[in-house]
């Protein structure tokens, strides 16, 4: 090489570097023709130096002429004559000397392959990991997760046995999941003795130690003898142990130990050197199992919560259902009872209705509709005025208003019903009272209406019958009575003493019969309302004196003293009827008084708001009336002793007439009696004016 120059010592040193450099070095001229190469360059292009000198670097590499112009590190692929492709990295330093440039080439073919292989491996790991994670996560059931984990690890590592060992609180533990080749004995569910898993191991694992033992028998493994025996028992030659740590507090053991268990791979066939990848995979899977544990616990908690909540809800639901059942039963009972009530109400031949405070019908039975000829919609919820019409409403308004003040009202009314006939109705309003704050509040009233037309007709017939009979009795009575009286004069011939006595009996009994007929007629007239009491202001004393005068003869006959105490009261009364009442009472008193006794007639003023009453009293010293007879004596034909009637010649109607008269005046009549001291009959009349001071306050 003629152009070659000698380098000084330093140059020699540099030359040595040049010669021994592993990188291919080319010195090129301005046209990129090679002027100098080193040994590595010859090796790279598999050419001797001579062949390379003078040739173009572009030609050499099979590139275009503008190649290798860049000064930065570039990559270029060259195809060798044998077809192999080499990837080169080159850098160019132009004009290292005037007109000469330096090109340095490095073969990076192998480096690139290694990188690609590593990338591929990493990609595979990621894929595998993702796949395993996906498989593990596919289930939320812890047992299934653990089983998947061991199965996957066993598959990937091609281990003979993979198990998940759960550390128990007492220091022992047992495999709870296992994937094992059929030729080896399963270890699942077998509790590991405490010495196999001593406390210090446990702490190491809890600290995150990964224990990879290539050969359990090797001294460097440092395994305790008992553990080696245990390993032998299960034919374990190599093992890889990673801890499964938990992060949830609830799962932590009281000492703060986060160690839940271990993921263990066993190699039984032969010792095994565990790769980093395998360690890493195991660790990552153990982490996944840890996460799954946490999730499972969360889920379990959630499930517990859901179960608890569901239980509560189902209990609440059950209670609700029960309540609904109870209500349904009550409602059905109510409906039944309502139906029964309606059936009964509809079956009754009376009109039943309920009217509220605002005078609207709220209930009515079928009879109501039939009688009024109205559909239910035109009764229920409607105002009384609308249902009955203006005119009829005016007639009943007072009664309605009275009922709504809380008083029971009964009245009779003649109304033309839908059949066109006038019916006599008896109507009763019963107030519906509800106690509020200890006060009765009227909510409305029940209206009961019954058709009393038949009863009225019968009453009329009875009245007519009585009238006719009484009338027809009077004429023959007149003849009998008169004949007897004529005979008694003796002017038509004298009778024997016995004959006279018979005549007397006939006469007395005729008079009694006359009284009876008169009384029957009186009572019937008063009761039927045919009698109109002609009331006016009457001086009580005058009434009393008139009655006493009437009865004086009878009293004298009986030897009874009749005393009257004059008063200055004025009463509102029918003169004749009150005299009749007083006369009746006096007559009774005289009749039942022993001779030489006294009958008193008096009157007192009784203050009884809003109206003052005058109370008349007829007192005798007779035999008295038993207590149970005090009320009944005012009924028709109710004498204390029926023999009295015959003995005393009474009709049994006198007191009944008195009561009718007194009640017709708005007064009351009653009797008080003691069997020793006699009886007092009282009756009241409304007082009008007090005339003087000579009154007797009662």
């Amino acid at each position, binding site marked *: 090489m003629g152009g070659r120059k000698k380098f000084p010592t330093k140059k020699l040193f540099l030359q040595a570097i040049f010669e021994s450099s592993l990188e291919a070095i080319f010195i090129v001229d301005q046209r990129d023709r090679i002027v100098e190469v080193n040994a590595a360059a010859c090796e790279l292009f598999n050419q001797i130096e001579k062949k390379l000198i003078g040739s173009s670097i572009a030609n050499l590499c099979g590139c275009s002429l503008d190649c290798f112009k860049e000064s930065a590190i570039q990559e270029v692929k060259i195809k060798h004559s044998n077809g192999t492709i080499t990837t080169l990295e080159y850098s160019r330093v132009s004009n290292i000397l005037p007109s000469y440039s330096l090109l340095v080439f490095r073969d990076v073919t192998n480096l690139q392959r290694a990188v690609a292989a590593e990338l591929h491996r990493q990609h595979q790991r990621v894929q595998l990991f993702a796949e395993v994670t996906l498989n593990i996560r596919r289930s939320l059931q812890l047992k299934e997760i653990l089983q998947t984990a061991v199965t996957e690890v066993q598959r990937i590592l091609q281990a003979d046995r993979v198990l998940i060992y759960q550390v128990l609180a007492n220091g022992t533990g047992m495999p709870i999941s296992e994937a094992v080749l059929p030729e080896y004995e399963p270890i699942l569910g077998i509790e590991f003795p405490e010495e196999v898993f001593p406390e210090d191991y446990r702490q190491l694992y809890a600290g995150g130690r990964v224990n990879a033992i290539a050969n359990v028998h090797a001294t460097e493994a440092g395994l305790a003898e008992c553990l080696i025996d245990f390993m032998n028992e299960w034919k374990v030659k190599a093992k890889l142990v990673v801890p499964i740590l938990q992060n949830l507090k609830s799962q932590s053991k009281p000492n703060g130990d986060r160690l839940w268990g271990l993921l263990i791979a066993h190699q039984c066939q032969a010792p095994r050197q565990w790769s980093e990848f395998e360690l890493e995979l195991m660790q990552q899977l153990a982490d996944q199992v840890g996460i799954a544990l946490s999730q499972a616990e969360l889920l379990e908690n959630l499930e517990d919560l859901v179960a608890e909540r569901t239980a509560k809800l189902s209990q609440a639901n059950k209670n609700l259902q029960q309540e609904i059942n109870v209500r349904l039963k009550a409602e059905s009972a109510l409906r039944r009872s309502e139906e029964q009530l309606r059936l009964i109400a509809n079956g009754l031949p009376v009109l039943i209705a309920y009217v509220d405070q605002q005078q609207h019908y709220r209930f009515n039975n079928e009879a109501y509709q039939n009688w009024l000829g109205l559909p239910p919609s035109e009764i229920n919820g409607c105002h009384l005025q609308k249902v009955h019409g203006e005119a009829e409403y005016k007639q009943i308004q007072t009664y309605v208003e009275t009922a709504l003040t809380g008083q029971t009202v009964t009245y009779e009314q003649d109304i033309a019903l839908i059949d066109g006939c006038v019916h006599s109705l008896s109507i009763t309003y019963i107030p519906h009272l509800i106690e509020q704050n200890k006060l009765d509040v009227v909510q409305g009233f029940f209206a009961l209406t019954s058709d009393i037309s038949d009863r009225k007709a019968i009453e009329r017939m009875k009245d007519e019958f009585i009238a006719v009979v009484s009338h027809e009795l009077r004429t023959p009575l007149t003849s009998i*009575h*008169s*004949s007897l*009286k004529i005979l008694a004069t003796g002017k038509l011939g004298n009778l024997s003493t016995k004959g006279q006595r018979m005549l007397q009996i006939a006469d007395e009994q005729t008079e009694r019969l006359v009284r009876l007929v008169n009384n029957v*007629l009186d009572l019937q007239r008063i009761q039927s309302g045919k009698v109109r009491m002609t009331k006016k202001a009457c001086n009580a004393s005058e009434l009393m004196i008139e009655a006493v005068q009437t009865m004086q003869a009878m009293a004298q006959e009986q030897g009874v003293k009749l005393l009257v105490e004059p008063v200055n009261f004025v009463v509102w009364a029918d003169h004749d009827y009150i005299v009749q009442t007083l006369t009746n009472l006096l007559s009774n008193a005289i009749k039942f008084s022993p001779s030489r006794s006294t009958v008193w007639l008096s009157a007192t003023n009784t203050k009884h708001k809003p109206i003052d009453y005058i109370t008349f009293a007829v007192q005798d010293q007779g035999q008295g009336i038993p207590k149970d007879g005090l009320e009944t004596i005012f009924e028709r034909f109710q004498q204390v002793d029926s023999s009295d009637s015959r003995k005393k010649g009474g009709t049994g109607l006198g007191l009944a007439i008195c009561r009718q008269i007194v009640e017709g005046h708005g007064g009351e009549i009653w009797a008080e009696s003691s069997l020793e001291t006699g009886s007092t009959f009282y009756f009241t009349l409304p007082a009008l004016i007090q005339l003087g001071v000579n009154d007797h306050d009662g």
Partner: protein
Amino acid sequence: MIMTDKCILLIDDEETIQEVVQVGIEIEVGWQVAIASSGLEGINLARTEQPDAILLDVMMPELDGISTLSQLKANVQTRSIPVIFLTAKTQAAEKEQFQNLGVVDVITKPFNAMTLASRIAKILDWEL
């Protein structure tokens, strides 16, 4: 002093009443009692006999007491003869109604024929 010069006309369809009234009055005061069994007969007798008073039964077949009374009051010959009704009806209202028709009073059945003359004398203010 017993008044024997009075003549009473009884108009009543009941024979027993006719008899007891006639006998009773005769025995009590000795008055003459003329009898008519119907309203028409009574009107005729009243005209011909000109009694001092007429006792007139209200309930009679054919011409009843009220119609008989109105004919008696319509006739000049009889209108001034006092008429007393005999009736089985006892109501005060009816009594008033009868008095409005022109009767002097009403005597209700049953009455005592033996005291009838006294009652008539009292009503008509006759001295016995």
